[in-house]
């Protein structure tokens, strides 16, 4: 029991207590200085009417779904490639993980160059193949959110790939052999043998992507600042902005309380559904 003490003290002081306090502040009109009053659910009313809640919710969900779908497709494909019996396999297995090693801030620099209008990589590439338009992926409200989510996929796919690769290597050779004898071609083996056998790994990666997507902050902060306007403002970024740049602590913490309940609910539901499907498979 004593063994628990150091971890428990840190965890309660810096992780649980702040969340409980933020629930409390969410019911007040505190602005950081001086006294504050209880205003009940007024903050929530404001967030609803103002559109902040709906907008940042929508952006967060779109971002998370994009990260989950693209991230899993990309990393499963990468894992299949890296699992092939090739002589250069060792080299490929070294380099695929590189993006995951860089700091989010460094990745943000690299990709803001890639997306930059005129001199950026995509711009130059498009104009060199003769497409004259100058795209501004981060500066355009209709593309900024997904362009940012794409960077998240690029950076996080390495870790997901390693997990898939380990799962693929756990599939016994005899299973694949008997599929071959039964006349499965390569595609059928992937669809009907490999993917079903990876179902618990898929659950792990979907949860990782989902939680990572819901908590997304770094790339929004560094690449778009939630903009243009609020077109790429996610829950975490909206909370941070309200608290630190606008000093609206009460409203920020009301949004935080909402985000907490929302993420908890979605995680529980998704985990239950996926566990059930896993057992059926």
């Amino acid at each position, binding site marked *: 029991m004593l063994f628990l003490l150091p971890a428990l003290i840190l965890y309660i002081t810096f992780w649980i207590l702040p969340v409980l*306090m933020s629930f409390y502040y969410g019911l007040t009109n505190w602005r950081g200085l001086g006294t504050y009053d209880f205003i009940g659910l007024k903050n929530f009313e404001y967030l609803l009417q103002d559109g902040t809640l709906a907008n940042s919710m929508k952006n967060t969900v779109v971002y998370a779904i994009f990260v989950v779908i693209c991230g899993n497709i990309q990393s499963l494909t990468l894992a299949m490639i890296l699992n092939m019996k090739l002589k*250069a396999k060792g080299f490929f297995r070294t380099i695929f993980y590189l*993006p995951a*090693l860089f700091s989010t801030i*460094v990745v943000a620099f690299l990709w803001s160059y890639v997306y930059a209008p005129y001199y950026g990589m995509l711009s130059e590439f498009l104009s060199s193949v003769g497409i004259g338009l100058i795209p501004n992926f981060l500066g355009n409200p209709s593309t900024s959110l997904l362009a940012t989510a794409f960077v998240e996929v690029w950076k996080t796919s390495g870790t997901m790939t390693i997990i898939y690769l*380990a799962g693929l290597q756990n599939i016994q050779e005899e299973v694949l052999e008997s599929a071959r004898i039964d006349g499965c071609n390569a595609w059928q083996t992937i669809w009907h043998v490999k993917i079903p056998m990876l179902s618990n790994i898929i659950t792990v990666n979907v949860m990782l992507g989902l939680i990572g997507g819901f908590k997304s*902050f770094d790339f929004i902060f560094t690449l778009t600042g939630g903009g243009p306007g609020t077109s790429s403002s996610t829950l975490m970024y909206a909370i941070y902005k309200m*608290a630190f740049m606008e000093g609206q602590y009460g409203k920020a913490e009301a949004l935080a309380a909402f985000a907490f309940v929302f993420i908890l609910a979605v995680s529980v539901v998704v985990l239950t559904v996926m566990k059930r499907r896993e057992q059926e498979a």
Partner: protein
Amino acid sequence: MKKKVIKEILITAGIASFFLLFLSPIIIAVSGSLREVKDTSSYLKLFQVFSLESYKLAFSKMNYFRSLGNSVIITSVSVIFLLIFCSMAGYAVARLKGRLGGFFQIFFLAGMIISAQMSIIPMYRIVNSLGIGNTAIAPIALYITAALPFTIFLYSNFVKAGVPYALEEAAKIDGASMPYTFVRIVLPLTKPALVSIVITQGVPIWNDFFFGMLFLSSPAQKTLPLTMLNFIGDMENATQWNMLFAACFLSAIPILIVYIFLQRYFVSGLTVGAVKG
């Protein structure tokens, strides 16, 4: 036989070109970082010049050795204490009898859905009221705390699956105390889990800028990612990019070196929790 060789070459070439595309931002940035500071020709002309001018400029602007030292200290202190605290707690959770063990496992695991941005203001106030604001202790304490939910889960599962309880009982009968049993028997048996914790938590701590941005304000305390944050205004300026690319690699080089030497631990470390869990 010959047909097989050709097929392998074709597949390898296909995969290589995929990776070339996948890693193109990194490749272009390496090439850009090796250009002279004022060179603003197209970045797609790769590796035309070799100059360390941009690196020299970035090196002095970042105050490189000081930031590197800060990063090393903050990351290693965080990881060492994390290892101690999470293994102790994880062991306790795994061995607590009855419902209590299950309760603590869920209690810690639930922390995974919390994100620092959610409760940033209360966190800030608690840190300041403890008198550790503006010291390296604040980010270190928060790095450890933020990593506890996942690492305790991983460690306790590993103990349950990989450490035979009979071994501990035998030690107890021989008169060994619980701390002695933990240090001499349990810890050595859980080495893979400990390696996994160093890799999965050490890299994000090394790379993080958020807690540093909140709690470290003096330039003398800045870590490598924080010095990068200073350059964020320069992103708008097309003439600064060669220096920015150099700064990117200066801050990534230490971890790239670690990765090259410890690559096999990265692979085993990242899969310990996931494949079993």
